[in-house]
């Protein structure tokens, strides 16, 4: 019995060592996107780090790798993957490198400027990237990449529509009014259609989210294993609503699964939707990345802007 207990003790010690080692690793975050979409600013807001936000030289396609320490001493390795399209010859070389970076990353974000009217540049790059990898890697990439619409605070609908700035103590929270809200939703749908719904790779996506309670749903595309619910293929709005109507007690699970397939509209400046983005990042995280990710989680929400700073922004209506 002593030998057995000693063995258990050794196994527990080894497991502890392994976990501690994983928590000390650098979190690899790749962000793909054109110059000026706000990649560094987005990472700063999301992980509470301080990456230099000087714009990269316009037109550059050089991969930048930066290491930065978070508030709790954990490290992020940030791969800045600028947009491609300078020349076909060079693009192929860059795509090879981007593909490797995205596959190796714990978190992969594809950032698109909300005010961009053309998606062909990014969409072609995504397709080229996926065409050059095998099916397993296509599944991995399509399931891992999070599409983000940046700088939604710069969207201006035809009707004048300010943002609401709501005072909470010394801080402010931004919220949209209907015209901006509608415009954001239209943009989100447009980009979701372009990048995900019309993609020839859409059926390869595997969505996933946690479910703490017992999940006894029998549906062909749904699987459940050890508190994680998986969905194979594209979960669109119609199917999400059907699942919610059929299994109401799991409505939050289906909503979270659906968010895996969204293009998340965000504003780093207004701290808008960063909580949603962080939840999607966490949901999509591979379990082996969990250790290094923990150091960047906060127990508070990420939607607050110092009020003294927020009131300096234009086109807002203050509410207390």
């Amino acid at each position, binding site marked *: 019995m002593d030998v057995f207990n000693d063995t258990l003790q050794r*196994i527990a010690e*080894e497991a502890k060592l392994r976990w501690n080692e994983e928590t000390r690793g650098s979190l690899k975050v790749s962000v793909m996107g054109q110059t000026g979409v706000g990649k560094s600013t987005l990472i700063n807001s999301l992980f509470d780090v301080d990456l230099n936000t000087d714009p990269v030289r316009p037109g550059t396609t050089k991969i930048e790798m930066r290491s930065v320490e978070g508030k709790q001493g954990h490290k992020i390795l940030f791969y800045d993957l600028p947009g491609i399209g300078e020349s076909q010859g060079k693009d192929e070389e860059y795509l090879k490198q981007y593909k490797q970076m995205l596959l190796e990353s714990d978190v992969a974000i594809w950032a698109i400027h909300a005010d961009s009217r053309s998606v062909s540049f990014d969409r072609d790059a995504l397709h080229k990237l996926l065409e050059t990898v095998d099916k397993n890697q296509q599944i991995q990439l399509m399931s891992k990449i999070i599409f983000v619409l940046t700088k939604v605070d710069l969207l201006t609908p035809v009707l004048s529509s300010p943002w*609401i700035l709501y005072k909470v103590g010394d801080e402010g929270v931004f919220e949209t*009014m209907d015209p901006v809200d509608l415009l954001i939703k239209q943009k989100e749908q447009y980009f979701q259609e372009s990048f995900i719904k019309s993609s020839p790779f859409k059926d390869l996506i595997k969505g996933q*989210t946690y479910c703490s309670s017992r999940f006894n749903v029998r549906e062909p595309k749904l699987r459940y294993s050890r508190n*994680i619910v998986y969905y194979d293929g594209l979960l669109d709005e119609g199917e999400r609503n059907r699942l919610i109507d059929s299994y109401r007690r799991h409505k939050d699970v289906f909503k979270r699964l659906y968010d895996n397939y969204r293009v998340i509209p965000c504003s780093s400046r207004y701290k808008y939707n960063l909580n949603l983005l962080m939840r999607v990042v*966490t*949901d999509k995280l591979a379990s082996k990345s969990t*250790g290094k990710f923990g150091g960047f989680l906060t127990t508070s929400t990420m939607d607050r802007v110092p009020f003294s700073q927020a009131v300096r922004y234009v086109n807002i*209506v203050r509410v207390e």
Partner: protein
Amino acid sequence: MTSYPDYEVKDLATRARARIEMDEKYARETLEAYETKRRLRIDEIIIEVIQNFYGKVVYELVDQVKKLLPKEWF
């Protein structure tokens, strides 16, 4: 009560409070998602360590058993 284009201030406040509640829900869900994955990962590590450990034990036992068998077998 002041209004801005077509909105009453109290409606705007209600809307902003709903946003705050939603953000708080997302933040809670983030922590729940993380905790679920953390537990899952620790389970995986324990399984890997046990497999690794007993794998070594099995090979060691195989070597010891071989010594007890006729030499011409090997």
